[in-house]
């Protein structure tokens, strides 16, 4: 068995393994995606006697239910059952953290369209038609729709929270310059292409098998068990993949699984519940809209001395995840900047709207936007370039490295990202070109902005920072991989499989990716907070190492191998014993170990180290590390109409030592464009009765292929391993790039302010639709005419 082909360990590993970490492997389902073979929940073979479910909805946003007569619903063609609160054997509240989310309206209606009952029928159309036949009487009350009014009236879903360091008020009072301004930040519809869907089948043991498009199978499992009054172990949830999620399937997938399970329980038949698009948009939560304010004091150089920032999250009608979301907005109200003294206050407003929920960035983008506005406003107040003021205020050095929540920031990467991008994007030369262009262009104006991102990585709810994995090795060397994370397109399964390939030194093709199932890895956290690869990659590595250790032990004990001489490399294992050097394939070793009665199945587990946070003092280390990046955007604005185009974007983003550069680049590009949509064309509108008007893609406009910048340079930082011991020193990438799009909004304001010789800070709430841009131009022109020397009206 001696093989002399292999010289050294490193020679063995050099580019020979197909699919190890660091390689740009294609998404594990790429071929299935392009052939239509990838199955989503609605594509699964339907069990016999399947019923389809729909919900009956409240016609008003606020009121008390007086009559709910479902006789016509029950009598409608194809209907098998209706479900009301009275039919629910267990819990009726499915609030994920705090109560407040009854699975069907419980006496009171809190938002327009709220489900009042559910119906199961032979076809989806029959269920939908039947759901329209209920006789409902509701004693209507005026809905509360304005979050600022809600705070004034003390209508909140959770108490106010404050983070404080130093005496901001005193610092501002002493400062040479003071500015204050407010900003309305719009929400965002997830518009995952696959709407919410669950299919549930009763099992022979009285339990439930659930197929659900969810980021959080364990929570769906727990809630299905609770509404049915079953032990958690009686319910199994499976999620192979989602057709997009972005946070919208973290908590808001559960209701439909629970309703389907309740109807399945009532009828003892399998039930599928899939929300048609308009209902999905009406009935599931969106990104929180925010009303933000700042008051800052700064010196002549643009250095911030004190900041008083208030953020008001429009949480809708229940707490859901809003406490943590508004907290994250507060955690990011500093973004990349050192606030020598700061007070950050976060309110959680109640409104009669569907409960707002997680969405990529989880409040972070909304918080960041207010400090980025302050940077631009300060720069224009001083007649400086905004980039100069931004750089002046960055976290840097040992004296300027403490966040308002008392975590220390290591600023080296942040500084480097900005420096490199400033050069690669040719910022200063373009700034001059743009000034020249604008001076000679009365109608069209260009704008430019560089904005950084510093995003904290970890769930701020500490117990969620854990993960599990399960690996089986079979006797032919094939490997079955399972972990607690879910695949929503981000390529998590691919990355985790690459980790296992690396650890066991086998080609990626030997690793079989399987659906996430609560009966394989229990008590999992949601795949959220950008943590999927960090947590599950580490758990899978732990499991792989356990197996590798057992295999090595086998070689030592049964083959007399020298412990130090065992090398796993390139689908083979080398070892030395008294008879010399040996090499066997991984498959041969697996077979041999099995014959020697070695367990080839292992679980893995991980919990994030170092993190701690005391919310009562608002201090600690909530984040294991920060992900950083920066973007430069150039826009062209038509002052006659407010229409604009994003002409060029340059991005430099730090993903540490990338697990898969192609997938990471995909996250950066996709996150950026999604963020750009949030800040530009994606406008949610409600009427005065609290009815959502934008219930489809006809009125809610996410970016199309023609909206992306014709010049779109995206690069990952090179040679920048995460200084923390993350999985192969990589960094999380799901959420952080989303906020790079703030550069587009900032560039729009830059272009607008050019109509007033950069003396005016144009008001520009988001999304910055052409109409908002138009009115901002009008306001700037008017202010310039009134105060020709520049009046800073942020």
């Amino acid at each position: 068995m001696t093989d002399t082909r292999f010289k050294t360990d490193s020679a063995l590993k050099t580019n020979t393994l197909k699919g190890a970490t660091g390689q740009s492997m294609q998404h594990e389902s790429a071929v299935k995606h392009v052939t239509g073979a990838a199955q989503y929940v609605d594509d699964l073979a339907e069990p016999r006697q399947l019923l389809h479910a729909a919900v009956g909805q409240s016609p008003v946003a606020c009121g008390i239910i007086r009559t709910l007569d479902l006789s016509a619903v029950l009598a409608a063609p194809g209907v098998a059952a209706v479900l009301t609160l009275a039919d629910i054997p267990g819990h009726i509240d499915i609030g994920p953290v705090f109560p407040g989310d009854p699975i069907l309206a419980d006496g009171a209606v809190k938002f327009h369209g709220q489900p009042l009952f559910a119906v199961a029928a032979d076809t989806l159309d029959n269920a939908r038609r039947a759901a329209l036949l209920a006789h409902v009487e509701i004693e209507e009350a005026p809905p509360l729709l304005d979050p600022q009014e809600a705070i004034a009236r003390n209508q909140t879903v959770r108490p106010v929270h404050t983070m404080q360091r130093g005496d901001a008020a005193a610092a501002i009072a002493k400062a040479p310059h003071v500015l204050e301004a407010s900003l309305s930040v719009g929400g965002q519809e997830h518009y995952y292409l696959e709407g919410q869907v669950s299919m549930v089948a009763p099992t022979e043991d009285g339990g439930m098998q659930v197929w659900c498009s969810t980021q959080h199978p364990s929570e769906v499992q727990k809630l299905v068990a609770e509404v049915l009054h079953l032990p958690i172990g009686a319910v199994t949830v499976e999620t192979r993949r989602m057709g997009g999620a972005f946070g919208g399937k973290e908590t808001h997938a559960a209701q439909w699984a629970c309703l389907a399970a309740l109807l399945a329980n009532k009828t003892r038949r399998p039930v599928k519940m899939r929300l048609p698009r308009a209902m999905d948009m009406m009935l599931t939560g969106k990104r929180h809209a925010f009303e933000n304010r700042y008051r800052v004091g700064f010196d002549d150089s643009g250095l911030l001395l004190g900041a008083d920032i208030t953020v008001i999250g429009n949480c809708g009608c229940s707490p859901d995840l809003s406490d943590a979301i508004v907290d994250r907005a507060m955690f990011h109200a500093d973004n990349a900047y050192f606030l020598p003294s700061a007070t950050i206050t976060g309110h959680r407003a109640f409104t009669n709207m569907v409960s707002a929920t997680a969405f990529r960035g989880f409040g972070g983008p909304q918080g960041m936007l207010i400090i980025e506005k302050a940077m631009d406003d300060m720069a224009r107040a001083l007649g400086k370039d905004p980039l100069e003021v931004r750089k002046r205020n960055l976290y840097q050095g040992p004296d300027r490295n403490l966040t308002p929540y008392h975590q220390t920031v290591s600023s080296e990467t942040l500084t480097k990202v900005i420096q490199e991008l400033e050069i690669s994007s040719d910022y200063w030369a373009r700034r001059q070109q743009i000034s020249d262009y604008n001076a000679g262009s009365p109608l069209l104006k260009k704008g430019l902005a560089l904005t950084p991102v510093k995003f904290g990585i970890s769930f701020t709810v500490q117990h969620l920072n854990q993960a599990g994995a399960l690996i089986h090795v079979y006797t032919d060397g094939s490997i079955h991989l399972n972990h607690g994370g879910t695949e929503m397109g981000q390529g998590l399964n691919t990355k985790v499989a690459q980790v296992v390939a690396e650890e066991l030194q086998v080609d990626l093709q030997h690793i079989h990716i399987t659906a996430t199932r609560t009966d394989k890895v229990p008590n999992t956290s949601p795949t959220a907070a950008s943590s999927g690869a960090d947590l599950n990659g580490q758990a899978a590595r732990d499991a792989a190492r356990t197996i590798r250790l057992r295999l090595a032990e086998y070689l030592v004990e049964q083959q007399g191998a020298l412990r130090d001489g065992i090398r796993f490399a390139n689908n083979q294992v080398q070892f030395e014993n008294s008879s010399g050097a040996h090499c066997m394939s991984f498959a041969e070793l697996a077979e041999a170990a099995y014959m020697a009665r070695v367990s080839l199945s292992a679980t893995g587990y991980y919990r994030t180290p170092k993190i701690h946070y005391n919310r009562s003092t608002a201090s600690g280390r909530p984040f294991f590390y920060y992900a950083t990046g920066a973007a430069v955007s150039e826009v062209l604005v038509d002052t006659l109409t407010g229409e604009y185009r994003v002409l060029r974007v340059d991005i430099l983003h730090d993903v540490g030592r990338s697990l898969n550069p192609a997938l990471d680049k995909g996250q950066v590009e996709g996150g950026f464009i999604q963020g750009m949509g949030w800040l530009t064309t994606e406008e949610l509108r409600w009427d005065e009765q609290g009815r959502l008007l934008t219930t489809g893609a006809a009125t809610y406009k996410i970016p199309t292929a023609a909206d992306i910048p014709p010049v779109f340079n995206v690069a990952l930082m090179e040679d920048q391993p995460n200084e923390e011991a993350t999985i192969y020193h990589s960094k999380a990438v799901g959420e952080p790039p989303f906020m790079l799009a703030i550069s587009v909004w900032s560039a729009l304001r830059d272009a607008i302010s050019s109509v007033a010789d950069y003396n005016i800070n144009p008001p520009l709430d988001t999304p910055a639709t052409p109409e908002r841009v138009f009115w901002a131009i009008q306001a700037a022109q008017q202010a310039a005419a009134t105060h020709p020397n520049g009046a800073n009206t942020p």
Partner: protein
Amino acid sequence: MIQFLLNDQTVTLHAVAPSMSVLQYLRTVLVQVGTKEGCAAGDCGACTVVLGEVWDELHPQGQQSALHYKAVNACITPLASLHGKQLITIEHLQQGDSLHPVQQAMVDCHGSQCGFCTPGIVMSLLAWWLSVGQGTASADRHGIELALSGNLCRCTGYQPIIEAAQQALASTDDHFRQQQADVVQQLQALQGDPMDDQGDTGSEAMQQNVQFFLPGSVSALARLLEAHPQARLVAGATDLGLEFTQQLAQPDTLIYTGRVQELTQVIDTPEQLIIGAAVTYSNAQPFLRKYFPAFADLLNRLGSLQIRNQGTLGGNVANASPIGDTPPVLLALAAKLKLTGTQGSRELAIEDFFNGYRQTALRAGECIESIIIPKLSANTTLQVYKISKRFEDDISALCLAIWIQREPDAGGSGAGRSTVQAIRIACGGMAAIPKRARATEQVLQGTLFSTADVDRAKATLSQDFQPIDDVRASAAYRLAVAGNLLSRAQLELDQTLAPEKLSLFGTAEVAAHD
């Protein structure tokens, strides 16, 4: 009986519910679930399939016996309208283990993330790739953007999809091209099916009391309308389809106009362009490009390519929506409508067609047969502007079209600086109907169309229009921008500003956008 090719198999259906969509048929009847439902409203493209059609002598613009490929939204395409066509689905692209070039490119370029929009994107790219090969689509970036205009992707940011499209062009052969002649023969055989030869009613899908008629002539169409007064006409179904998928309407009688000879032809005379009411936007576009470039440009922003491949000019006019994109242009061009019923035909100025919100002058039993557009004469110009939140596939906040006829320019002072002899300004999104700006036209009539003239005219727009606030824009924005668009028109005619300082699409970097 309905007959079509599903990929390479002939499908014969004897009963089809009029509201049955191609998507429902694929997913729930055939259980071919590769085609996805994203919105069921023709807005996201997840359900995109490709139709192969043989253009025959009914379409003078078409190359006879050539197979043309177009991407459509399966979710709002009536199944029965497939008669005589080839339906290509995602399941038919892979040959054995080898992926189609567009599929392979999507894999190589990391063009899928969650994968849900991907089958639709692949189908749009397939139609584009085949059309590029036939010289009917542009291979450049703008061509790719147009091809993808109706496909939403929420994950990738599109960059890798655009790269995939570019990479796919490196291959030029596939089984569709190889089998084209066979498919043409098969489809021609279906065209000639005996049911179609009955002429009067054409093929008919019967299911108890519900019917789907596919007449072949306008006289047959008129007789059907008379016999079935409750019937709805369906052309592209890009609006009607939503009544089925969103409002769950169950129509009992539909009459499909897409096979009516008179309605599907374009007649090009020296003075007029006569476009059949059921000619799709896509098929009308080359003719409009030739005579009314600004109109053709507007069509690139009307819906998505999938919608333009299905939707028709006649449908847009008959729908009488205040935010339809073509009526303002047709008003500015003083187009006429040929209306036909069993009593014969009449011509009506399009301005007299719109009676009120979604109300038209169409009489019972009448249909729009064609739209007659007078060509531009010397010294006349047409300018068209559309304002929406998003450039691609968005409904107008407002649409404004200006037709101007100037005095012959004797003094050599430059085109567009002579006196305005006649002017027509029409707007969509500004009133309950698409409407002329008569008072504003009056102000500009006889002027030199100078900045000062336009400024005076802008002030009168509020006499012509009292727009409303809605989800797309505020009344104040609509009015202010309508005025500014008059300024833009003036500046464009004035030609004192360089293109890169006049139009968002005039800069070098985005010059590809026309």
